[in-house]
């Protein structure tokens, strides 16, 4: 993969130097870049005396209000907010640093004067995976005291999950317990966080330090706007999506399959629609009108077509969350519903139930406004992009597993997946946008070997990877591990892999089809079988990628990789874990799991 040209050609350097800087900046982390920014600022101020002297970020030595922006991000939302917060903070005269918890040092906390924490919660109340170690250490007995340090926590979450914003809540408690001073009340934000997050950040920064006007004197301001990959918002966002035409819509599974996986091609009619392989594409789906009508009938609003249209396009009409039950209880004054909002009974009732079940089981007539007030906005759905912008003429392809199940006597459908599979056809337009995934990137060096591990729709980004590397003529070897249920009907993109193997763009492929034989075979079994060669590849600098379902695959793959890496250390799993951590730190073990 070529180096992205981040510095504008107009930068005050020679062409060669721009090239050199591009290479460096492209592979640097946000922390490194922040450090450099501070370093150069310090250099200008004459504070670094001798060459070779241990360089310290100048930020710590600036007479500004220091601010540590610490984020824990899974899908990139917290990271994006952290970068926005830095921008806002720098404008207000802070000397801020943005640090990913994945790369943060616990010992730095006590030295920080002000800490802004932006943390998302993942799955059933877990911290984002990459932040898990830091989080664990912070929660542990060995965590340092941070007496006097001011902090504020912005928590991101999804009310669809019971442990809404749990990570942020726990961090908030813990920082206080360690002696920190809460500068602002925590905000717990749902999927529609953008506006509230910006307001909270503004408010909190004001509390932490008043605006100063002339603090920028000695700071070299780098215009990050020219760094689209780093912290610039993509051209098209959830708030500003693009209408893209569906040009192909095919269920890739052979008839007779137990799976239903749709290949969707979008052809946005815009030259500024850009993405990088590894990114996600957000789809602003619409609800099933039939379900919406059922819902309206249940609350006595059936036939209100204007309201129905609103619900179809803009409101989450499926998620049954505890806050919603709580709100419904208050609204209706029903004691039985209020009892339902109690943790245990909510867990029992909400299992495999949706909003419609609540309305059907505890029916009350509602006014339209009352109903709308209960509902949260319809969140977009993210899919790993299955194409390469370069190789696929600027189109964005997605691999969408249709979600269908039956529960409590009702057929249920995934909102976004069946929106595409059932309710849209070729030629229709759908609102989509780009969600950068900075932690799932091809190696900059195209000669690097890559090992791609994915099951089911987890194979999507690799289709983009291989197409991209083929288009760029990258020389690095590539190895795909793919898993699904049945060879004959579920070998997603089989003909394309055959072409890539024939052309050499894909060097190796191993497959695991779990249901073709009496015993289950999964990708991790294949990894283990091939461990000697895998170790060779890793020794040659291979980057490892894992994409797919966390519980169903990624966790087992992770454990298998630990075992494989432990093998040269006589099976010492701790050594294997340490090695995997090293790879993670070097950006050579990247995961896109859900």
């Amino acid at each position, binding site marked *: 993969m070529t180096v992205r040209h981040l510095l504008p050609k107009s930068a005050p350097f020679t062409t060669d130097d721009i090239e050199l800087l591009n290479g460096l900046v492209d592979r640097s982390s946000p922390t490194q870049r922040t450090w450099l920014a501070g370093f150069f600022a310090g250099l200008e101020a004459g504070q670094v005396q001798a060459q070779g002297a241990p360089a310290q970020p100048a930020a710590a030595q600036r007479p500004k209000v220091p601010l540590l922006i610490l984020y824990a991000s899974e899908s990139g939302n917290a990271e994006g907010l952290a970068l926005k917060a830095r921008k806002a903070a720098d404008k207000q005269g802070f000397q801020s640093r943005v640090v990913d918890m994945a790369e943060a040092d616990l010992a730095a906390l006590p030295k920080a004067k002000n800490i802004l924490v932006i943390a998302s919660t993942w799955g059933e109340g877990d911290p984002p995976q990459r932040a898990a170690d830091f989080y664990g250490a912070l929660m542990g007995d060995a965590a340092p005291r941070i007496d006097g340090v001011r902090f504020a926590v912005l928590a991101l979450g999804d009310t669809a999950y019971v442990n809404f914003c749990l990570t942020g809540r726990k961090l908030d408690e813990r920082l206080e317990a360690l002696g920190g001073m809460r500068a602002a009340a925590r905000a717990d934000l749902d999927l529609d966080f953008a506006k509230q997050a910006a307001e909270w950040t503004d408010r909190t920064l004001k509390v932490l330090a008043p605006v100063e006007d002339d603090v920028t004197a000695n700071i070299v301001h780098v215009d990050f706007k020219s760094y689209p990959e780093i912290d610039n918002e993509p051209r098209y966002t959830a708030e500003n999506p693009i209408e893209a035409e569906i040009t192909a819509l*095919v*269920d*890739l*599974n*052979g*008839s*007779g399959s137990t799976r239903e996986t749709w*290949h969707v091609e979008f052809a946005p009619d815009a030259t500024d629609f850009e993405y990088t392989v590894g990114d996600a594409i957000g789809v602003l789906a619409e609800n099933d009108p039939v379900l919406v009508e059922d819902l309206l009938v249940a609350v006595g609003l059936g036939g209100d077509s204007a309201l129905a249209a609103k619900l179809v396009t803009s409101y989450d009409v499926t998620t049954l969350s505890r806050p919603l039950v709580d709100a419904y209880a208050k609204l209706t004054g029903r004691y039985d519903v209020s009892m339902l909002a109690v943790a245990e009974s909510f867990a029992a009732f909400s299992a495999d139930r949706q909003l419609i079940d609540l309305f059907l089981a505890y029916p009350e007539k509602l006014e339209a406004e009352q109903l709308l007030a209960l509902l949260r906005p319809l969140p977009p759905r993210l899919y790993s992009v299955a194409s390469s912008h370069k190789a696929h003429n600027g189109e964005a392809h997605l691999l969408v597993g249709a979600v269908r199940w039956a529960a409590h006597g009702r057929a249920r459908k995934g909102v976004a997946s069946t929106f595409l599979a059932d309710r849209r056809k070729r030629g229709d337009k759908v609102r989509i946008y780009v969600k950068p995934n900075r932690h799932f990137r091809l190696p900059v060096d195209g000669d690097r070997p890559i090992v791609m591990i994915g099951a089911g729709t987890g194979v999507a980004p690799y289709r983009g990877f291989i197409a991209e590397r083929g288009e760029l003529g990258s020389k690095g070897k590539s190895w795909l591990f793919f898993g699904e249920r049945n*060879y*004959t*009907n579920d*070998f*997603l*993109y*089989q*003909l*394309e*892999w*055959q072409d890539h*193997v024939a052309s050499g763009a894909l060097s190796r*492929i*191993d*497959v695991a*089809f779990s249901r*073709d*034989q*009496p015993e289950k075979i999964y990708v991790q079994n294949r990894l283990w079988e091939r461990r000697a060669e895998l170790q060779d590849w890793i020794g040659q600098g291979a980057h490892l990628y894992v994409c797919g379902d966390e519980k169903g695959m990624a966790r087992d793959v992770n454990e298998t990789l630990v075992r494989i890496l432990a093998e040269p250390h006589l099976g010492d799993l701790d050594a294997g874990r340490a090695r995997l951590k090293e790879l993670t730190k070097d950006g050579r073990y990247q995961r896109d799991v859900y």
Partner: protein
Amino acid sequence: MTDKRAKNEIIKENSRALRGTISAGLGDVVTGAIAEDDQQLVKFHGTYMQDDRDVRGERAKKKLEKAFSFMIRLRIPGGVVTPSQWLQMDKIATEYANGTLRLTTRATFQLHGVIKSNMRRTMQAINAACLDTLAACGDVNRNVMSAANPYLSKAHGEAYELARKLSEHLLPQTGAYHEIWLDGEKVEDKSGPAQADVEPIYGTHYLPRKFKTVVAVPPANDTDIFAHDLGFIAIVEKGKVVGWNVTVGGGMGMTHGDTETFPRTADVLGFVTPELAIAAAEHVVTVQRDWGNREVRKRARLKYTVEDRGLDAYRAEVERRLGQKFGAPRPFAFASTGDPIGWHQGPDKKWHLTLYIENGRIKDVPGRTMRTAFREIAGIHAGEFVLTSNQNVIITNVAAKAKAKIEGILAAHGVDLTTSSGLRRNAMSCVALPTCGLALAESERYLPDLITSIEDILDEAGLRDDDIVMRMTGCPNGCARPYLAEIGLVGRGPGLYNLYLGAAFDGSRLSKLYAQDVDHAKILALLEPILLRYAKERHAGERFGDFTIRAGYVKATPAGNQFHADVALAG
């Protein structure tokens, strides 16, 4: 000089005794297929690569290659399997194949839908059941059939023994089978010289074409002796086999529109005593090996060698190699080709139950869980199972007191001991669509419905219980031996068949084309008046095939080379 040999000859020559690149192909996971030449070679190992033709249309659109899978055919001389073997095959069908067992017109099991990644495991599971698939297909002597049920008489036992010995004697000696399928991991060495497997009978090029051998015990011609390259007819005196009439030159396959190709009934070569039978068989094989046509593959069967060289010349050459002359053929008489359905008692008072298996397909369907029934019977049965040349099953050696138990199991699973009509009882079909790559039309999936329709006519004619032999194939290669059926239907294209009439009930005379490219309605329209008239005008004991000749619907076909002669198509 240009090499005029057929392509398969070159493939065999370069195969290093049937190895080819099969092993490497099994390891290529990005495709469910194997290399084109290997597709020819795996036949010798008892398997065909196929694809599900029902879904061909959708595959490319779904970015999937054709739905490849393998048909695996077993070698079971005489069709005898133990209950334990039955259970193991049943398990293999569940674990690796499509959940059904297919009994074939060569009295063996076929598995369908085995994907490449399961091929070695399936072969190993078959081997673990003390069964194999070697030479079940390919240009070699294939599964040897014998008159059903070795326990029916002493002569039947001897026929079975001969079938087994013939199969063993004519088996390829290459180590390729063991190496590729059973050792599994052993990778062939391509760098060294070709493997020095010696094939004493077959040589480096095996036979020019497939070769089929059967053994019959008159008056039953259940093995359809005249349809095969080589046959042995038991000559029984005082309950003992005193020798065999040897037949050569039968075969079914032909090509639509090519009158150079035709089905042919075998000729009787002469009589041999029991101790000479194996040697005679070997030399019939080696003469065909040396004389057979290796340039035109569709004229490569033994029947064309006999046709082209003459029976006398063929006999003389076999006798020369044998160092002995054949005796004059002994008289024999066949009565029928079908299986007598139901209970029969053997000389030792043990009972044998012949069950009609529609199309030979053993499967569970709602209300008729035949596969489960057999599994349960195999679990309690002390005797054996015999697969017949008519795709039926005989449960052998049942003690009188165990009969009720077996009947109880069958009844519990909805399996009838009788059939709905004499026509159905005598009907056979090949597999055809969706798996057979040669099929031009449906066969197995269509014949039962066609019979149901004809049964209405039979009722009208009062012929429901009459034995009439009807066979259908999806292509002219004739796996279900349609040209020896009184009513033969051979696929021409989707929904269209050629209708043949006039074969002998006892399997001794070929049929004649009566109507071309007829669909379901036309088949019924053509058969109805003939069946009605047959019911009214037949002489006592006159068979339907004979009647269609006497009544002038078709001319008789006295020999294979007259098959295309005197054809007068019905309007």
